[in-house]
């Protein structure tokens, strides 16, 4: 293994570490998002992070095997958040967060 290939391996391994840390933080946000909309956004970003991780794996191995999976995730990853935002979030209101003074003040 030559020197530049070692540099490539180190760079992509660092990218994988960053992606895994991002996924862990997103799991934290999904676990305690105050509302369903936060979880919806976090799931949407989670699909993007999975695509980035699969892309890092493909770049590491020079392998196009996971490209259809990335394609399907990019195409269908937004349906979950759209469904939650359109049909579920109106029934799942955690707390009324409007302040009474704000409502009276805006005519």
């Amino acid at each position, binding site marked *: 293994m030559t020197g530049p290939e070692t540099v490539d391996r180190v760079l992509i391994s660092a990218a994988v570490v960053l992606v895994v840390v991002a996924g862990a933080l997103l799991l934290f946000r999904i676990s305690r998002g105050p509302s369903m909309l936060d979880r919806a956004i976090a799931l949407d970003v989670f699909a993007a992070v999975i695509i980035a991780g699969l892309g890092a794996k493909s770049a590491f191995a020079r392998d196009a095997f996971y490209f259809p999976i990335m394609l399907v995730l990019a195409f269908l990853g937004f349906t979950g958040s759209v469904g939650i935002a*359109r049909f579920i979030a109106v029934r799942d209101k955690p707390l*009324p*967060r409007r302040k009474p003074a704000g409502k009276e003040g805006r005519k």
Partner: protein
Amino acid sequence: MNVWLQIADTAGAVLVLLGAAISLLGVVGMVKLPDVLSRSHAATKPQTLGLLLVLAGVALRLRGGMDLATLALIGFFQLMTGPVAAHLVARSAYRTGQIERGELLFDDLDAQLTEPGQEPGAGTGPDAGQEPGGGHGTGR
């Protein structure tokens, strides 16, 4: 090995690392920001810029025609579906009152949603039934 191919490989690895770093920055913003709207604003960064950088890096390392076409298609779908999801989530957050009204500097939509005859609390407007849960009518 050709030196230009090696340069393309290393540039691809650097782009993958840069895209992963931007994704991590956007996710940190999602964890730390306080509101649904600001979290949605932070969520757009890993979805578009970080993912496009990662895909460009992969395209620099796999230099086949079919692979480039598939990667371009992935980026295109992500660019197309990201704004739709962000728009619907923000709209639902506004209509169910899950945003911090004290933090908004301007609220151009509010005057349109509370036309005379659809005041909050009236509940008898012509389209009061169109909006499940009441939207702006539930704020007390």
